[in-house]
């Protein structure tokens, strides 16, 4: 619709159109979006095309190479690697995003409150330090021991453990975000435009949501992208210790771990889950990078 939108910077555009225009100039971010959506689509739609049960054991077809029926070969029990990568991806991505979201909400809330309200700063940041000082693994072990059976009874083994893992990863990884956000909020709230907003009688809640948070978005985005990677890796560590998902429940981390000994026999078992983790983390990081540039009012050219 060229008539409606002449190339004139004065024309009114919504924030999100602005963001998109900046974002699309970031080549890395665009490639990241492409790769990431490919992975998500493949993982969720793949099973409809390649409808092999990832758990089906076929001992006649152990350690097979690439073939038509098993495009990525099979593992040492005859399970189809491609189907396992799809199934594992769904779990890993779901865990990564859900845990990231939880830690983001917690971290931003704590960080903003601590940065904006001076009275809360001391207690909240000492609380954050307390969490940072807690040894992570023993804490996870205790939480899982205490709540595993309760959740298993309430939601069944798979949903129960999913909720538990998302919760424990979320609850133990919000501290960095909180510190970063607090620092950013402390800086922003001394700026002139905040004083201006306050002088015209804007309420505190509005100042935070309209002026401070959008300006603090870039560090939040960055810690979010790092959080996804972190959550995927923590989940695989927990699975390895036997505290995560049941062993027949594939996740990328577990596939990678199980395949390590077979790296010379069936390299595909290590290659694809490893590649999937790396590409996901990398593309999400690039998307975060692009978003940061696009969302930062100082960097966005109008």
């Amino acid at each position: 619709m060229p008539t409606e939108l002449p190339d004139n910077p004065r024309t009114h555009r919504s924030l999100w159109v602005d963001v998109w225009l900046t974002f699309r100039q970031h080549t890395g971010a665009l490639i990241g979006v492409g790769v990431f959506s490919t992975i998500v689509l493949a993982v969720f739609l793949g099973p409809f095309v390649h409808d092999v049960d990832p758990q089906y054991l076929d001992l006649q077809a152990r350690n097979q190479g690439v073939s038509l029926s098993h495009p990525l070969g099979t593992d040492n029990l005859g399970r189809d690697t491609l189907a396992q990568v799809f199934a594992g991806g769904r779990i890993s991505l779901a865990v990564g995003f859900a845990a990231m979201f939880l830690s983001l909400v917690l971290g931003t809330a704590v960080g903003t409150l601590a940065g904006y309200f001076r009275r809360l700063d001391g207690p909240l940041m000492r609380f954050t330090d307390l969490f940072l000082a807690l040894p992570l693994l023993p804490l996870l072990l205790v939480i899982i021991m205490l709540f595993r059976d309760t959740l298993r009874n309430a939601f069944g083994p798979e949903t129960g453990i999913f909720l538990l893992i998302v919760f424990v990863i979320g609850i133990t990884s919000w501290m960095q975000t909180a510190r970063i956000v607090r620092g950013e909020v402390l800086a922003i709230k001394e700026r002139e435009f905040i004083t201006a907003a306050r002088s015209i009688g804007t309420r505190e809640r509005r100042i935070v949501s309209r002026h401070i948070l959008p300006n603090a978005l870039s560090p939040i985005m960055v810690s979010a992208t790092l959080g996804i990677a972190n959550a995927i890796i923590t989940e695989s560590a927990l699975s390895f210790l036997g505290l995560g998902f049941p062993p027949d429940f594939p996740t990328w981390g577990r596939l990678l771990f199980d395949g390590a000994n077979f790296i010379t026999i069936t390299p595909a078992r290590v290659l694809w889950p490893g590649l999937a983790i790396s590409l996901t983390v990398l593309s999400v990081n690039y998307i975060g990078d692009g978003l940061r540039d696009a969302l930062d009012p100082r960097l966005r050219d109008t």
Partner: protein
Amino acid sequence: MKLRHSTPLIAMILFMAACAPDDAETVPEDTVENRHLNILYWQAASIVNPYLSGGTKDIEAASLVVEPLAHYDDNAGMVPILAAEIPTVENGGVAEDLRSITWKLKPGIVWSDGTPLTAHDVAFSGAYCLDEQAGCAALASFTDVAAVKAVDDHTVRITFDVAKPWPYGPFVGSLTPVIQREQFQDCLGARAQECTAQNFGPIGTGPFKVDDFRANDVINYSANERFREPGKPWFRTVTLKGGGDAASAARAVLETGEYDYAWNLQVEPEVLAQMVAAGKGQVLMGFGSQVERLMVNQTNDDSNLGERRSLYLDGANPHPFLSDPAVRHALSLAIDREVLVEAGYGDAGRPTCNVVPAPSRYASVANEACKTPDPAEANRILDEAGWVSGTDGVRAKDGTRLSILYQTSTNSVRQATQALVKQMWDAIGVETELRNIDGAVFFGADPASPDTFQKFFADVQMYTNNFQGTDPEVYMAGWVCDQDPGPHNQWLGTNIPRGCSAEYDDLVEQLSTTPPGDDRARIAKRLNDIIVQNHYMIPLIWRAAVSARSNSLMGVRMNPWDSELWNIADWHR
């Protein structure tokens, strides 16, 4: 946590890069390097005193230094080491009433510090372990021992509280060696753990002595010049290195040739075969009494039970469906043991239907039928017992579904077995949920942890067990009714399935008074049959001890009955 994951992979890559081929075979004879032996135990030794550690790694590390009166050899026979001969009733060494055994020492044996070995050292070793405050790990070997007394400098008599038809518990096998009185006399009782210098560097009569010990890392030994057999040991120095995992240990011997010997290689057969193909070493196997089995919980493990969970309570807390013999029978029938062997063990395992598969005189032949899986028959048994398939394909009766929580330790072979068994049980309408627990926790025996194999907060669990030496009496006595684990014995009871049979208890009592011979074998077989035919335990695989040696290392005789390093004095290139 990140490190924990990337390490194996990175280590493996570095490993492969660092290990350019070297031609170890062409090293000329009799150089210092050639007379040095490198051994790799992927679980590192933490102490060199077997009395204070039940761990195989520690027992075997100590077996180079301290020796018992007699060993088991690779054919499960007893060989006198420090003793002149094996005492029997025939040669008068064992009293007619079976209440004492008298050992005579070989003359002229000296400790590595030059002082002579006497019967007082043996008596002291007994007192050391029998002290209640010492926390002796070998106490089971001293069951019913009243006293260990030196009769003269070369004769020691062990007396028992009861008639003991099998008196070869104490000082036979590397678990109960003779330690030096002079060195350990200040370490009795509660002070045992405090004697670091002694526990880390015991003076022994064995072929080697400890030069340098770093706990949980490495032990350096050098040859004992005063060793009783002239010209032995052939090696002048030994390094026993710990750490890593089974697969990397196998690789270090078979593929890269960095080490001469590696122990306990539970890795998938195809991985091992590929390493062997590199041509640097060979795999050694010895079939002892190790059986990988399923323990079938006879008590209710429902998490809503709180304190009563998995407690026997004299039969008042039965399992909702595993207490039905038909269900247990069907579970066993559905399993194709050949498939489990092929996928996880290869030559290192054989299907078995007994919990005591060896020695052959004690191995029952009454249960061979289980080697042929029969899912159809299993389905029929379940139908007959009233367990009918629901809409979800899982059998149920009166609202109780056949849904099993199946746990084991973390090990890729065990997880493979779990997955296979799950699929086999699916075929008879039994739903299975798998769980794996880190070995350090599962076998850790911590009474505070809910995840130990003794707590057994699951329906079925799987692990390997075996017995020391060649007589199963102590082992089988562990499965009597009142050995059920619970708070009353700090969860250290040994009747893990919590199954109970009056006939079994009576027979165990008979066994303890029956001398070796046909009767003893008959009773032992019957005990095995009771356990197996009631399916309190479902034996799966008779496992070999698997180790690897480099091509240049000679004289190794794989011994599943005692320390694998039992004849290290004879090893050479």
